[in-house]
């Protein structure tokens, strides 16, 4: 039954996809997405702009900044529609090829420019932190290494935290790489380069380190460690790689050949890296050498050996956290296996294997292995969003420190602090969040207007009102003033978009729970479904999510909302009272859930629903095919 339904859903999705493809061939379009309110991070709703498979949206960041985010469209829908259980109103806006390109380029450049500007703040904050560290650990002249050491990305594959080098037999692939480097650059090249790097480190000052003192410092230190690893052909650190007996990791002959060819090319590229103009050559050299060792071991043993690629941002989930949720873990394992199989197929699909392809394979291997071992052996499981790129750091204390007097360091600190404050102020001025004039909706309209004004005048700042409005009308069919006439509210903005722009199609995407209920109403007795799914106690779709407020009845699709809302208010008050008593034991979580429950139930008394419940997991079987998310046209 379920299989048939899924088959039908896929067929329907294929038809929609085909329909979307035909439409795309006829006319370009962008989509305005308006996300329903729910409790959580965007109680007033949210908005986004979709360009094919990429979505841009503005999010509110502490402290009061509004920043542009870029996500894959499926990822955005997965988060907002499924996990956050929000309906999404889609408005498809017809645009010319030229307008499409201008708008996409504008948002992408804004995204990248913002990234550069905030990166400059990170860099100067790093400078300040490094100088503080040097000052704290210096007595007169900064000759003592910072007590805690400094984390150097990529060094963890060859070095442990602390000082000194790994002992053990030389690594054969690195012995061979060292021979090639000596043959290409000269016998003493590595020693000379190391000596030069040491001198550069001791002579480093904020004035001679380019845009960032701290980054230049860590680049040089990473380079020095990479040279040391190569000079001594160090073996991989225990725990920094995975070599497993599991037959799932047995390599077929053609896979071994593909990995061997990739390793040969990698070795050539690593020789080239030692002549690179990039200042941060140490990190890719460390990772490349570690991968080279793992690849040789894979080919030698016929079993996949891969680097551990989980980074410092990984969360650790203990077995207690998933206790009783075996189905979810199996589903996740199946998904990780499918991702690994797809990445593995790419190894032998013909053509040159790019580093990005190998990285995907490495990432998928890590994710699958982490789940497989965690579930099988009841171990902690590390989780990390996005592509896993090897970055294992070593916190080293045997550092070559810049020779700076305390007076110089104090001057360096004052300069870094002043620069940090100046950049913070500039960013705050440029990207300050404002509820009405600069929020997630108004900034999208401002972006659309700015991009098209540039097209009309060459510079948005030079455009007169009349020319700006004309340029925007020409591109989108109409002009919307950011923040005007309540359009800063997401659901009001949908109406404005549909009434103003060249909207050729609309679609209301149901939230995850509504979508599940719709299916249930079709297949089961509607009355039974209504009774069972109307509340959090007997619902088969919704399970208590610790991030949600306390409530009993769902009120997003019932005419008796005020009545049920009153019950929810009473339940929230009750939970708050229990939470008060439980305060010493649960850290106030029940109290907070109760108070939030009351707050989010109050609008229900006035027939309005905000809270819909959220999910921390959605099984793959219930995730819509990506094509379903496109308007049907």
């Amino acid at each position: 039954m379920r299989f048939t339904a899924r088959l039908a859903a896929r067929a329907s999705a294929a038809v929609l996809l085909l329909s979307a493809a035909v439409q795309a061939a006829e006319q370009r379009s962008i989509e305005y997405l308006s996300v329903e309110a729910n409790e959580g991070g965007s109680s007033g709703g949210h908005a986004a702009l979709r360009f094919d498979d990429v979505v841009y949206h503005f999010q509110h960041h502490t402290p009061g900044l509004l920043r542009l985010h870029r996500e894959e469209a499926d990822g955005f829908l997965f988060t907002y529609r499924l996990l956050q259980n929000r309906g999404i109103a889609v408005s498809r806006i017809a645009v010319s090829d030229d307008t499409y390109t201008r708008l996409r380029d504008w948002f992408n450049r804004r995204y990248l420019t913002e990234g550069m500007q905030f990166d400059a703040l990170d860099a100067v904050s790093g400078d300040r932190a490094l100088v503080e560290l040097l000052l704290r650990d210096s007595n007169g002249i900064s000759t003592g290494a910072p007590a805690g050491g400094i984390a150097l990305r990529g060094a963890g594959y060859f070095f442990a935290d602390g000082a000194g080098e790994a002992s053990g037999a030389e690594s054969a692939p690195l012995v061979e790489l060292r021979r090639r480097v000596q043959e290409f650059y000269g016998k003493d090249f590595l020693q000379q380069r190391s000596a030069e790097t040491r001198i550069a480190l001791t002579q480093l000052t904020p004035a001679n380190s380019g845009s960032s003192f701290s980054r230049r410092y860590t680049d040089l230190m990473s380079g020095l460690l990479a040279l040391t690893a190569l000079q001594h052909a160090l073996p991989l650190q225990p725990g920094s790689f995975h070599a497993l007996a599991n037959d799932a990791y047995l390599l077929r002959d053609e896979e071994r050949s593909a990995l061997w060819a990739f390793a040969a090319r990698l070795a050539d590229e690593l020789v080239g890296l030692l002549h690179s103009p990039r200042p941060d050559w140490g990190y890719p050299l460390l990772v490349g050498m570690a991968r080279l060792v793992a690849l040789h071991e894979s080919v030698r043993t016929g079993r996949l050996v891969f680097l551990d690629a989980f980074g410092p941002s990984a969360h650790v989930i203990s077995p207690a956290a998933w206790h009783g949720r075996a189905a979810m873990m199996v589903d996740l394992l199946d998904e990780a296996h499918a991702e690994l199989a797809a990445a593995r197929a790419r190894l032998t699909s013909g053509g040159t294997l790019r580093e990005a392809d190998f990285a995907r394979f490495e990432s998928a291997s890590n994710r699958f292995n982490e789940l497989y071992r965690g579930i099988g052996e009841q171990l902690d499981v590390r989780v990390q969003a996005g592509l896993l790129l090897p970055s294992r750091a070593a916190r080293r204390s045997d550092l070559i420190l810049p020779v700076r007097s305390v007076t110089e360091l104090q001057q360096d600190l004052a300069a870094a602090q002043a620069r940090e404050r100046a950049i913070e102020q500039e960013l705050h001025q440029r990207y300050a969040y404002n509820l009405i004039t600069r929020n997630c909706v108004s900034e999208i309209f401002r972006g659309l207007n700015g991009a098209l004004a540039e097209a009309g005048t060459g510079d948005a700042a030079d455009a007169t009102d009349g020319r700006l409005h004309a340029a925007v009308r020409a591109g989108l069919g109409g002009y919307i003033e950011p923040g005007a006439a309540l359009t800063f509210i997401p659901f009001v903005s949908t109406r404005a978009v549909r009434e103003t722009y060249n909207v050729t199609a609309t679609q209301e995407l149901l939230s995850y729970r509504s979508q599940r209920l719709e299916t249930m109403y079709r297949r089961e007795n509607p009355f039974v479904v209504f009774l069972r799914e109307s509340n959090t106690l007997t619902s088969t779709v919704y399970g208590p999510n610790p991030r949600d407020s306390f409530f009993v009845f769902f009120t997003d699709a019932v005419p008796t909302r005020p009545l049920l809302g009153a019950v929810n208010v009473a339940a929230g008050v009750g939970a708050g009272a229990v939470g008060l008593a439980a305060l010493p034991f649960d850290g106030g979580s029940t109290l907070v859930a109760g108070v939030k429950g009351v707050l989010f139930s109050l609008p229900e008394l006035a027939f309005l629903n905000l809270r819909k419940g959220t999910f921390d997991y959605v099984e793959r079987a219930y995730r819509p095919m990506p094509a379903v998310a496109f308007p049907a046209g």
Partner: protein
Amino acid sequence: MTHRAKHAVPVMLLLTTAIGCSFSDSSESISKSISSPFESSSASSPGGTEAYQNDVADYTYAYVISAGQADTFLKGLASVAERHGITNWEADDATYVGIGQGLSKAKFTQTQVEVFAKNVSGGDAKKVQLVQQGYDSVKQK
């Protein structure tokens, strides 16, 4: 405006006043962190090389019009590449083609392109040629 919508506006106003737009939340759901079913696919999806090249072009354009320091360009380029699963961006031809495309969009002159290409490639003739190829590909459109 419907009767319901009329009620909705003041309540939404209150709520947006209290909380506003989507707030960036660093905590991840279990499934998103473990499986990242969508975020992880971008590195090598069929359009992977093109997507990377476009990002490099846009980044280059954004950089040159902001007139930053040379080392920040290379650092930023490394960040762009890492988002696409690439640590050694010098070994990927798409990097240089993308740089050329970005310079063309920024309306660099031929002489400016040659200087930029020489600096970013360390004088490597093949890489200079790839930058030129990217520059010409946009100019011809």
